[in-house]
């Protein structure tokens, strides 16, 4: 039984990321003959002596012409141990938008640096965004190690500097691994390199195959956003009323006491149904249908939660926004918030801080938030919604900010989610309604 690892890659232009991803696909034999022939032909057409593996992954014609990649691309490869879904995130102009997108579902991220340049500003920015988005594990691929003559001292210096930065961002040392590689020559990508006898760690693929996959939060309290109410109204299932959804966190068993939010009505689970039959228990990640003891009013947008440990229901909260739109965000903006399966009207009442991902510091009360900027804001909702902190659950602590007029996605929102700042006390929570001094805690106003 193979399992699935979702990973994202991030790096600056010219770090050789497309080549590294091409190398992973090529060396795991995930590239098939006709695709490879096309790459050989295209490389020869451009007068290249060896096939350009980056052509395996640079997809759209416009970006092949410019020699850059402009959007997140998804790649698939598998070994007997694991299947991999790789979000390949380009690392230039739109880097925040792309990194946030790739990181939002990733269990691990591979960051690339050029061994000749080491950890640069963009490496630190990427790592900060990955930390903010809660990607559990990082790999630093120190690429082009051949161009520094496979020098151990150079590698160790870069590894040490990166570990220090990642630790400052809140990563434990065992969550971060550095690997010396040459994507072009293949050193330590899939096969162990004879050129780095001083390196005793795993190759990149070995690491990806063996790294513990962070399980879905099974031991967390139960969370279940209701997607759809199933009512067959057939002779066979006359009174069937099931609540369909994907378990966002925790586990559920028949007999469990639950609360429906925002109404606050309580009841118990009588049955967990699927097309393959009833289940004795369901856990985070599973799509199921719940049947409940009492006939209470539940519809799409409601959240079913563990009665003993339910989230706060609030219409007023603090969040971190990764702003992904061309138009800027200013205080007072009216937007839509899509949280779980519910979309509500909202207003951004205050811009509190703008994150400086380079210095890991923040700027107080910015006038606006622009494309690819990250900041902390206060939001007020038209109706109360059950919110978890992002650090508790990526699924129930995340939301989209949507443009009211054209429906575009404006921002990725993280409930709570304090910025990974180097120094304490930069954030101020002055004024406003019932803002807690601890930014981890949810703001929870009265009724």
């Amino acid at each position: 039984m193979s399992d699935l690892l979702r990973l994202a890659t991030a790096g600056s232009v010219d770090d050789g990321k497309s080549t590294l991803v091409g190398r992973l696909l090529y060396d795991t034999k995930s590239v098939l003959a006709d695709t490879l022939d096309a790459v050989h032909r295209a490389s020869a057409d451009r007068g290249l002596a060896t096939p350009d593996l980056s052509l395996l992954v640079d997809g759209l014609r416009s970006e092949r012409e410019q020699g850059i990649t402009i959007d997140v691309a998804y790649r698939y490869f598998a070994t007997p141990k694991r299947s991999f879904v790789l979000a390949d995130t380009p690392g230039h102009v739109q880097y925040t938008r792309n990194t946030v997108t790739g990181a939002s579902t990733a269990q691990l991220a591979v960051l690339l640096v050029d061994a000749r340049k080491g950890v640069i500003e963009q490496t630190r920015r990427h790592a900060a965004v990955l930390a903010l988005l809660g990607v559990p594990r990082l790999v630093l691929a120190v690429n082009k190690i051949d161009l520094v003559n496979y020098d151990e001292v150079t590698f160790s210096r870069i590894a040490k500097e990166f570990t220090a930065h990642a630790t400052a961002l809140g990563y434990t040392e065992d969550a971060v691994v550095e690997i010396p590689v040459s994507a072009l020559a293949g050193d330590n990508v899939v096969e162990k390199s004879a050129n780095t006898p001083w390196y005793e760690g795993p190759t990149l693929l070995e690491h990806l195959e063996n790294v513990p996959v962070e399980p879905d939060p099974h031991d967390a309290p139960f969370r279940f956003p209701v997607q759809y109410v199933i009512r067959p109204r057939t002779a066979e299932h006359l009174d069937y009323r099931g609540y369909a959804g994907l378990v966002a966190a925790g586990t559920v068993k028949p007999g469990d006491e639950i609360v429906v939010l925002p109404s606050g009505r309580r009841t118990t689970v009588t049955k967990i149904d699927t097309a393959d039959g009833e289940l004795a228990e369901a856990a985070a990640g599973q799509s199921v249908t719940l049947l409940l003891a009492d006939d209470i009013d539940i519809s799409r947008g409601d959240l079913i939660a563990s009665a003993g440990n339910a989230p706060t229901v609030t219409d007023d909260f603090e969040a971190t926004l990764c702003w992904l739109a061309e138009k800027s965000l200013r205080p007072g903006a009216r937007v839509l918030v899509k949280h779980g399966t519910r979309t509500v009207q909202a207003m951004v009442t205050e811009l509190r801080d703008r994150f400086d991902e380079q210095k890991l510091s923040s700027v107080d009360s910015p006038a606006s938030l622009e494309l690819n900027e990250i900041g902390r804001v206060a939001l007020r909702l038209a109706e109360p919604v059950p919110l978890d902190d992002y650090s508790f659950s990526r699924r129930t602590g995340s939301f989209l900010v949507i443009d009211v007029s054209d429906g575009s996605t404006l921002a990725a929102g993280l409930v709570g989610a304090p910025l990974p700042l180097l120094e304490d006390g930069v954030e101020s929570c002055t004024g406003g309604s019932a803002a807690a001094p601890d930014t981890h805690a949810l703001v929870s106003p009265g009724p």
Partner: protein
Amino acid sequence: MTLALDTLGRLESEAIHIFREVAGEFDRPVILFSGGKDSTLLLHLAIKAFYPAPVPFPLLHVDTGHNFDEVIEFRDRVVAQHGLRLEVAKVQDWIDDGRLEERPDGTRNPLQTVPLLDSITQHKFDAVFGGGRRDEERARAKERIFSLRTAFGQWDPKRQRPELWNLYNGRHRPGEHVRVFPLSNWTELDVWNYIEREGIELPDIYYSHEREVFLRDGMWLAEGPWGTAREGETLQRKTVRYRTVGDGSCTGAVESDAADIHAVIAEVAASRLTERGATRADDRLSEAAMEDRKREGYF
């Protein structure tokens, strides 16, 4: 029942989640259904998503008229078996009344775009499920699970939204629609492994059989209403199977002895050619062929 899902379990759960999101947020969804393996899988997942209720969407088949009889027979049987509603848009009707012209090469795959868009407009479909997978072709690697199309069915890379967590944004203006791809993260091997695990029935032509075929551009094409061997091409009897089923004029068979699902999986696992490259002439026209067709509103 183990609580940790394996790869297929995760892919299934993700697809079911996507079906339910669309059912919850759109007024008039439709599933594109040709009787091919990806659309059969799509339907299987839709049935599971709404069990024990019936699938709350109709099906739409854009019929090129160049079909394999076995596939049409299978399509109609599946529709009847599950009590589904099927709309058929026949390319021939568009040719007959002059809205479309037959191409000089006789291929009808590119002609599907107009009947598809006309049907979407006529029925006011606002979400259109397709079986597209990102592993099929490089231009699809950046496709979203929710892919916004203009009122002209066009795909504009600049208007595609970032897809964050598993929160899908399906908002669209009147006249626009969203193509939805629940199989985005599946590979060809995942599809076959799942078909085996679930015991999903497919049209017979996916398994090896004897057929009169001729060689054109390195592909074994069958004769049919779309034409037969030209001068210099000879019909011969071969043991073949199909890896995709589409317009008969440009869908090639591969020589294969894989007569059952186990043999097919072994063959796919060892395969040296991508599904589309091996068997779809229309993808070979140019390196960026798929990108162009996507912009036009084809899948």
